[in-house]
């Protein structure tokens, strides 16, 4: 990870919140390197049957739009206004009180007024007013309306791919206007004319074909999991099973592919393997449904459904009873708020019951998918795990609530319960920066690519500074989370703003503390770092 091309932290932190002299409708976008993402490659659009595949980049003058692009966008807008009450209402109901403005991590980190959620939404609203409201048609700019031009489209692209759909603004809005919803609509419209980013569309195309975002083929998944089993054996002396595509398993386990692929996600994945081995769970991974995350969410509702469909299809093929899901953020937005509606009813599955404790997960009785922290918290609560929190004494932990589990589920206590049972040194960040007010990693929703690094570091700054505070006050050296994108992107964010802090999943913490039957004496944690105080 290189920060060579972007300003140093002491420069980046010099943020001005004063808006520019020119009115926002007269201020055009500057595609400055480091603040935007590369366009979607034609091969990926073609693979997914998406419109207007071509070679282009956002910084180009000519975006090679179809001749009738305006008609396509306006028709798409009309369709969505009729399909989504949220969209129709959020186009009308804002009073521009500005309460959302300084709640956006991108605004806090950049000072760019178009990163205020209210103004990001006005980018779209102004066009809505011009073509869909009487006052806008008649009074134009006086009614806050403007024509749909290429410059407006470019502005949409820049700012809708500078929103991580984290929903923090919607918590503070007196009408619950959710910028994530508006960004999702904006991105759907952009997709209609072939304007999307490769960091979203390539994972989506990969996922469609190989079952996971990273494009890992079946043998690759097996190899990676076997490598982890080797590492586990090395640390613990125990050989864990890695069941894959196993018919007759009780439970299908689905986790984001980031967990198999790279550190520090792999340590979390090792945690799952060790836990399932220790409790003797009859489960299976799947190569076809080898992705919990869903980059369709950053493309269109249709793409969410196309990618998500694999999970139920695979559960049915393998004949499992129910589904368990790993640590991931936007994955859980899809599982919790979309999966049952889109691809259910899952009446071929059974209501989830923990085979170890007998606990019935009533909150998941329709979708039939349980969050791993719900599952593990229940195990600990029922005394089914032997834990030695001293093995985590070298870790001074703080915890980042991932946006989607926080604001689309309300999953706060389950991970904290696991942390408290497995770690002796846990310190919360400031109240304004955790739980429903949690600050985004700055790189979700497909923005976690290298070319977008300056925007990422700006957007992640508020989170990083909250970490810095607990580092100074409590010598914190580890940032816990329950999201695969976090594990990847917070790592860069810490390197830039708070060097010395590393990132881990909650199940890595658990696995460090988990006393396994027949294990050898542990001298290191999963990362091979020596234990202290044991």
């Amino acid at each position: 990870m290189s920060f060579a091309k972007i300003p140093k932290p002491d420069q980046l932190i010099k943020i001005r919140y004063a808006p520019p002299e020119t009115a926002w409708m007269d201020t055009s976008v500057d595609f400055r390197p480091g603040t935007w993402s590369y366009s979607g490659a034609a091969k990926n659009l073609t693979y997914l049957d998406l419109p207007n595949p071509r070679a282009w980049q956002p910084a180009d003058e000519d975006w090679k739009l179809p001749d009738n692009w305006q008609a396509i966008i306006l028709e798409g807008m009309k369709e969505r206004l009729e399909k989504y009450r949220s969209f129709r209402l959020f186009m009308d109901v804002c009073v521009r009180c500005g309460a959302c403005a300084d709640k956006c991590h991108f605004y806090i980190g950049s000072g760019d007024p178009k990163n205020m959620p209210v103004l990001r939404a006005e980018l779209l609203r102004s066009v809505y007013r011009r073509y869909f409201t009487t006052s806008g048609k008649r009074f134009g700019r006086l009614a806050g309306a403007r024509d749909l031009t290429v410059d407006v489209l470019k502005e949409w692209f820049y700012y809708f791919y500078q929103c991580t759909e984290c929903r923090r603004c919607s918590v503070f809005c007196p009408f619950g206007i959710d910028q994530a919803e508006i960004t999702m609509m904006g991105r759907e419209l952009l997709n209609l004319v072939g304007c999307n980013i490769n960091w979203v569309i390539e994972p989506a195309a990969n996922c469609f074909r190989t079952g996971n975002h990273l494009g890992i083929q079946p043998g690759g998944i097996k190899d990676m999991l076997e490598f982890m089993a080797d590492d586990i054996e090395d640390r613990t002396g125990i050989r864990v099973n890695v069941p894959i595509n196993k018919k007759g398993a009780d439970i299908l386990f689905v986790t984001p592919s980031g967990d198999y692929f790279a550190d520090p996600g792999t340590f979390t994945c090792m945690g799952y393997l060790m836990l399932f081995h220790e409790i003797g769970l009859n489960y299976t991974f799947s190569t076809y449904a080898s992705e919990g995350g869903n980059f369709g969410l950053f493309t269109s509702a249709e793409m969410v459904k196309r990618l998500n469909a694999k999970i139920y299809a695979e559960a049915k093929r393998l004949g499992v009873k129910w589904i368990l899901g790993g640590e991931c953020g936007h994955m859980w937005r899809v599982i919790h708020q979309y999966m049952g509606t889109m691809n259910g009813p899952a009446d071929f599955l059974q209501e989830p019951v923990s085979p170890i404790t007998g606990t019935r997960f009533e909150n998941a009785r329709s979708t039939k998918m349980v969050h791993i922290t719900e599952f593990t918290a229940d195990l600990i609560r029922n005394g089914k795990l032997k834990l030695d929190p001293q093995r985590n004494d070298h870790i001074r932990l703080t915890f980042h609530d991932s946006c989607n589990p926080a604001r689309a589920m309300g999953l706060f206590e389950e991970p904290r319960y696991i942390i408290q049972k497995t770690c002796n040194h846990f310190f919360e960040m400031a109240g304004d920066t955790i739980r429903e007010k949690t600050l985004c990693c700055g790189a979700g929703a497909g923005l976690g690519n290298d070319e977008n690094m300056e925007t990422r570091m700006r957007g992640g700054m508020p989170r990083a500074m909250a970490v810095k505070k607990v580092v100074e006050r409590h010598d914190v050296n580890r940032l816990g989370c329950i999201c695969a994108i976090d594990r990847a992107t917070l790592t860069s964010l810490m390197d830039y703003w708070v060097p010395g802090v590393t990132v881990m999943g909650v199940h890595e913490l658990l696995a460090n503390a988990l006393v396994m039957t027949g294990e050898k004496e542990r001298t290191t944690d999963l990362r091979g770092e020596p234990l202290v105080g044991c």
Partner: protein
Amino acid sequence: MKNLLISILAFFILALLALGIGLNHSLAYVLIVIVPYAAFAILLTGFVYRIIKWGSAPVPFRIPSTCGQGKSLPWIKTNPVENPSGAWGVIGRMAQEIFLFRSLFRNTDVAIVDERPVYGSAKWLWFCGLLFHWSFAIIVLRHLRFFVEPIAPWIGALSALDGFFEIGIPTLYLSDAAILVGLTFLFLRRVVVPQVRYISLFTDYFSLLLIAGVVTTGLLTRHFFPADLNAAKTLAMGWVTFSPVVPQGISLVFYMHLCFVFVLLVWFPASKLMHAGGIFLSPTRNLASNNRGKRHVNPWNAPVKVHTYEEYEDEFRDKMKASGLPVEKE
């Protein structure tokens, strides 16, 4: 800035028009007999139209923003209001939003101090917003005393409570003072805070100015140019009984008050003021977060092109077999 100037200009033109109508007795008939019904009809039909238009769009997905611990394991303490799992929780959440502006109460501000963002409490917007809306509601309810006979006891009680401190003659209503404070804050904030000014549209300024016009002329009528209360009551009862008469001895300021009120009635459904209706429909607030427990149905859920397991295995069968992974077809 331009939006601000145009709104002020529009307001002054409106005020002059109102003044002209007040001075021109030949227009009194139109103002008293025709305009009120037209304005009220526009308010009602406009309001209903907007609500139906919003309401007719389906809610394809259940997308509440959760602001507290959700319902999961029985021993984990949930927040049934901020993260409702059923109808009662939703009712509680909506009541908090509508009557107490719960979400706005969370408001903070941010400043970069010593190279890091510092979040401060910023409750003034919440407080003055609440002050404005509640006093507006109380004032509207108090005015019912002109429209019903006999005056319902609760209206009398409300007025008595509102004038509890008996300051001045006639008594200054607390709601009148409060709405002035609220309006002044909301307007100044819009003008003074650079970010808020930057995002403000004509409708944002004009709506405040228009309501300020109604309030100011109302206060002037009550305290400085006292209207004949009996005449006002006769006027209002005339409207209610569909037999409006142009009363004698009505002051110029009172005519202006009526003008502003009628403009407000017409402006309401056509403008941002419709947030009063919209707040009830917000899908991030008025739905329970029980999606995994209870399936939500999307009326336009349509089949999509998927990549089936068979297609997947056809592409990767040889590799799967080579890795020792089970396959459906050999």
